[in-house]
């Protein structure tokens, strides 16, 4: 049994501790907002917070989060009211949307570390996540908008 806190709730799962955290989140906890894109630390579609840090959940095993606090897009807010999510809607960022849970989780982690990032810091931090639809400039604007509200 691996015990940890998922979106504020204590959970325990009997899956093999070796199992990829991303798959446990998606298929065992049934939280489908976190996406699989590459399994190789290259795209960031799987980004979640582990103890407040943005992490690639495809690069962690279930055992790695024993005792940790894990937050997914579903736990960021109940109703899309997190400032980053509101900024995403205001700037109409998503196209296909598939990368956006990961982008939002990364942006939220950035703002909790650095509430007033420069454009350069935003670009740098967000470069871990890919968006094939090419919404990057909107992502930057949305992060700046959210920074004003945090």
């Amino acid at each position: 049994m691996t015990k940890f806190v998922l979106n504020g709730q204590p959970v325990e799962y009997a899956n093999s501790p070796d199992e990829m955290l991303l798959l446990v989140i998606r298929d065992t906890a049934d939280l489908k907002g976190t996406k699989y894109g590459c399994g190789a630390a290259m795209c960031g579609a799987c980004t979640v917070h582990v103890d407040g840090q943005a992490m690639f959940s495809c690069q962690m095993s279930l055992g790695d989060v024993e005792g940790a606090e894990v937050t997914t897009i579903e736990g960021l807010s109940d109703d899309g009211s997190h400032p980053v999510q509101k900024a995403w809607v205001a700037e109409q960022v998503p196209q296909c949307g598939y990368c956006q849970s990961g982008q939002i989780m990364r942006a939220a982690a950035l703002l909790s570390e650095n509430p007033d990032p420069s454009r350069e810091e935003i670009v740098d931090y967000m470069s871990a996540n890919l968006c094939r639809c090419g919404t990057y400039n909107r992502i930057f604007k949305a992060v700046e908008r959210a920074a004003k509200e945090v």
Partner: protein
Amino acid sequence: MTKALDVHGISRRGFVQMASGLTFVLGVGGVTAVRASALNDAPLEVSHWLSIRPDGVISIVFPATEMGQGSYSTLPQILAEELDANWDDVEIEQLNADDRRFGNPLFGGVLYTAGSTAVQAFFEPMRRAGAQARDVLLQVAARELGVAKEELRTEPSVVIAPDGSRMSYGELVALGADGVTVPDAERVNLKDKSEFRIIGKDLPRRDVFAKSTGMAEYAIDVDLPNMAYATVLRAPVEGERPVSINDAAARAVPGVLDVVSLPDGVAIVAESLWSALGARSELEVEWSEDAPARQFNSEDTLRQYAQAADDPDAEHAVWAEKGDARAAIAAADRTYGQMYLSDYAYHAQIEPMAAVASVDADGQGAEVWAGTQTQSWTTRTVMDVLGIPEENVRLNMMTMGGSFGRRTAFAQDYVRDALLSSKAVGRPVKVIWTREDDVKHGTFRPAAAQKLEAGLTADGKLDGWHHKVATPTVIGFFNPVRWASVRPNDVISMRGAESKFYGITDFRADHIITPRQARLAPYRGIGAAYTSFAAEAFMDELAEQAGRDPLDFRLDLVEDNPRGRHILEKVAEMSGWRNRGDRALGLSFAGYSSSMAAGVAEIEVDADSGDIAVKHFWAAVDAGLIVSPDNTMNQIEGGIVFGISMALREKIDIENGEVLQNNYWDYEIARANQIPQIEIYVADVDAPPVGIGEVGTPMVSAAIANAFHATTGRRLRHMPFTPDRVLGVMAS
């Protein structure tokens, strides 16, 4: 996200068929049935495109599929505009069947979302359906109020009488259709542009909230009771098959349910994806090693294509012709020619291929969840794989995590994998391709070699243009049925080579149809992704040969295209082209189908690493009428980013039939830190809409190549412009 109307658990269409209540149905050209009965709680189905319920909810069919382009919102908005609906009353109903009443007129009625055609194709029919429905509502109100229809007007979702009294659309629907006639779609009154409340305004996209909260459901997310997971070990080379399978170790992995032999691979079906992936790595499969594709080597392929492009006697199909290009070039004061090359490219959509299938116990029907660009060919795939009739196929078209042409095929192998796996284990099965599967078994933009030749007059004007494109037929591979009817004209391979925005008196573009040596598919921009690179890089070289400014040289050619002239002048103004001094600017004028785009790139070249950084991109676009301005900006910007990505890095290599790349670490796509500042101007014109999904892409690569010449004096003629190629060109 997608709501199918559901009345007490009975589907809308089922309910209509029961006809308990007021229902009247229009066919394509007019009334096909008018039925009424006593109950007043039924929807008013004015045409197959929409229904209005007495509670005021308006349900509009979305006939396309959504992959990020936004037509899930845009198409229903077109109908809602002419209906004069309150957009908040509208529910969007995803079309989940190969129902040809909603077929794409630009694809002969096939349900096919591609080629930036959705708004262009559905603009008229959906406007007219909305206008017909509004007219019907006015008639009901006129009857009820005892006034002439002409004295009534509408505001969003209400009819207003001369005395100011108001009746909502929902109330009117409950009153019944007695005495109502449905106006002819062709003659119904349409709004003037100045009356638009929805078209051209910035209504938020319907899917953005779901996509900002993790709630949007893609095929890869579908979860069913008792569902199993499958992953497939595929033949490393096209056309090969498993000859022996040792699955003992794989079957011993806990959670494995079955190992299913597929025509070109082996599927592991398990209780979890983790088990399936673990078991797959334990599989020992011997593949047949006799496929002709074993001979495919991308370097040789491109060399062969270049030879064909250079061979004056190569067999060819004329793609576009005006006047006599060869005679004009032969007689010109000066002639000039160049060869341009481009490699295979991969879609790299972030959601890999995935599908869920639940085959009925008797094998005679199936429900399928998939994201594809075509209800028609997905339906066909299910019918063909299971040998079942169309009516036994139950489809759920899911929003796609990007596609860019990836999910267009006539035969959809990932849907097939899910069906065969489900049939084998008697449970619903979700098939997921890993990123490596998606790359190694990708379907690519074809490699191409292009030879351009032109003549110049003594005073530096263009005098004859001959564009030869040596590349295989894409349609012939991904949709042989369509190829049989369009052969030898392959718009997917050739688009853009017609250079139709220029008035070139003696013009010819030929398709030298070379042997196919990879799996192929449409890719964002289709042929224009490489033909516009060659044409616009060559145009820049010609201007140089003629001793003219690249802008002036092009302006000569748009005398009969004032809209084209406008965007060229506009982008020159935006970028400061006329006073550019020694800034590294490059100009390009391309577009997609009938949408035009002029672009200027400003770049920096790192002479040590060979890296090109695009610092700024200006674009001026004319795509006719714009339905959703904000989404248009997002799409054009995305198209430009895509163009930068493919121009700088994207390349697939094939050796002995195997794709060498694996994942995003060796197939790199543009990241946030490679994105320039982008400024876009969209012309406000009085012309039909012609599409915005791909117009941003084709102009980009030549703009970069031309900017490279401006700063280094060298020409980049092989896309992508990877650092090794850049260094090679600079050293030459």
